[in-house]
């Protein structure tokens, strides 16, 4: 932050110093288009001082198709009579000839990222491991001058993206926590978990459906099988299916994605298997309707009203349809339990369903319902993750307040 500010002040100063000259010198045409034509005619007169110290080197953290060029601005950049308006970056694979313009930046800039395409067929193909020479052309409105040619440089790819170090470390630490606590759980260490109302209600709701002799509706949301919320919901589904099999209630799982269809069928099957009643599983209890959001919802709403489902569970990734489902279920008089990772939809679930699992609670629910020690171990790891976040936040806030920017920057991601 601070460095940027100082840089800004410098730029400001430079611009203010140039202003009077601009007022005098500029009368026509852009530097970009008309300027080029003129410059070719009149390159000697009033040429600005040339940029110096041109250095080209491989651009960091990339796939090896870019070179970054840096230079010392012209002495006339921001001062002098022949004020510089812009720089052009020229490149060639020969140190003497064949230079072509690769880009243009406004005055006051001292570096340029020359990035090209990866594919050989592309017009803008930028070969890796091939030497290139650069020079910089400083342009005023009427004239230009060129720097000396840089030393050769070639582009190459990197093995590690240093800008993502913080992500790498955070992921490594959290993975370690998960492994550690799962291992502890394996060894039989008892773990306490606080009660969550929505999760306790699941059992009760299944019992109610059994008493009423009406089906349970389970909606996995509109996410794909690769969405984390869908995965969490699939786990819960298999636990619910197990209980449903035990109580001998019927389960309806209409889905909105073909791949989710297959994994949902397997999850339900696994639940029936765990309950010791694999023969009671009916394949048509999980079926595909359509992948189009509102068509899917219209069908599910019809289903609720006609089948008069006793219990509706909405767990997974939900979008605008959340309230359409929840209100219709409410009209049908169903007990409703919801949970989603879509923050924008949580308010509607809270307003229109009986219990709502907020964000992370959805992910915790699978472990709660199974009470399997391995899964509970992961919950403990999540809590330690939170402790780490809180400590980082406190220290980071303190550091930001005291302007210890280096600490705050540890968390910065430079993509």
């Amino acid at each position, binding site marked *: 932050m601070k460095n940027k500010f100082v840089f800004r002040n410098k730029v400001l100063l430079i611009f203010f110093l140039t202003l009077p000259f601009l007022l005098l010198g500029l009368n026509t045409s852009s530097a970009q288009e008309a300027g080029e034509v003129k410059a070719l005619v009149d390159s000697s007169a009033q040429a600005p001082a040339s940029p110096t110290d041109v250095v080209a080197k491989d651009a960091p953290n990339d796939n090896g198709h870019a070179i970054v060029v840096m230079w010392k601005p012209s002495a006339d950049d921001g001062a002098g009579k022949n004020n510089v308006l812009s720089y052009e970056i020229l490149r060639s694979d020969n140190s003497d000839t064949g230079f072509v313009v690769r880009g243009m930046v406004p005055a006051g800039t001292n570096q340029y990222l020359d990035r090209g395409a990866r594919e050989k067929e592309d017009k803008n193909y930028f070969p890796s491991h091939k030497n290139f020479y650069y020079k910089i052309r400083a342009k005023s409105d009427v004239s230009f001058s060129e720097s000396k040619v840089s030393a050769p440089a070639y582009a190459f790819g990197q093995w590690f993206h240093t800008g993502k170090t913080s992500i790498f470390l955070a992921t490594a630490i959290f993975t370690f926590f998960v492994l550690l606590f799962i291992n502890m759980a394996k060894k039989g260490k008892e773990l306490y978990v606080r009660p969550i109302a929505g999760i306790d209600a699941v059992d009760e709701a299944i019992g109610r459906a059994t008493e009423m002799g009406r089906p349970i509706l389970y909606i996995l949301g509109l996410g794909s099988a690769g969405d984390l919320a869908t995965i969490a919901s699939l786990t819960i589904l298999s636990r619910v299916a197990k209980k449903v099999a035990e109580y001998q209630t019927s389960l309806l799982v209409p889905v909105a*994605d073909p791949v989710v269809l297959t994994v949902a069928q397997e999850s339900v099957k696994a639940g029936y298997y765990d309950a010791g009643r694999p023969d009671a599983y009916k394949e*048509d209890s999980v079926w*595909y309707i359509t992948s189009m959001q509102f068509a899917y919802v219209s069908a599910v709403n019809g289903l609720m009203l006609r089948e008069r489902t006793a219990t509706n569970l909405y767990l997974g990734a939900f979008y605008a349809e959340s*309230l359409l489902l929840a209100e219709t279920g409410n009209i049908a008089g169903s007990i409703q339990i919801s949970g989603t990772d879509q923050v924008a939809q949580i308010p509607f679930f*809270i307003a*229109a369903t009986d219990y709502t699992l907020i964000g992370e609670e959805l*992910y915790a629910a699978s472990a709660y319902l199974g009470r399997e020690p*391995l899964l509970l171990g992961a919950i403990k790891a999540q809590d330690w993750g939170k402790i780490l976040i809180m400590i980082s936040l406190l220290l980071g806030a303190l550091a930001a307040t005291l302007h210890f920017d280096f600490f705050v920057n540890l968390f910065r991601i430079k993509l």
Partner: protein
Amino acid sequence: MRWQYPLLIVFLGGLFMAVQYFVPLEFSERIYEYALDWIIIVGVFTMCLGLWSLFRVSLAKIQTKAPAWGYNYITLAGLFAMLILGPAFGIEEGKPFMTLFWYIYTPIQASMFALLAFYIASAAYRAFRARTMIATILLVTATIIMLRLIPLGFLSGPNQWAVNWILTVPNMAAKRAIAMGIGLGGIATALKVVLGIERSYMGKD
């Protein structure tokens, strides 16, 4: 063989893709793109299973005379109309395929979406009762925000200020905390899948 190899694929695939994220090399990029193609291609082939499922369930409803069974003929007619019209006449604008899309799907989608205006009102009426502290906070905040569109005379100034403050302070804090919780829960879930601890999605036999 039925179990171990698929779980090994999950583990190796997961590990590789997670590490790939940190390697900017060109071959890593290409593998990433190739892997995303895998997901798309598997999805395309699975679509047949989806259509089969819809067809079979609709047919079963007709055969068993389930509630509203007769309407399933309409579903099947719509399905086959699209499946035939698309390849037969093309899917460009102006072709029957797109005409059905624009005059059947689009108005129904827009109307379903518009139903939300009614449901949001009835949900607010029913749920926003000051029964508990939590419900009270919810209802008061929502009301303050909704009041921003209503002329309140001299109270509108403070209301505007309150709306901006709520959105940029407590609302921001809530969003960030929820995001962090979801992040932790989501990564833990993904790790459980990669490590093979969570595998009910593969069924049992």
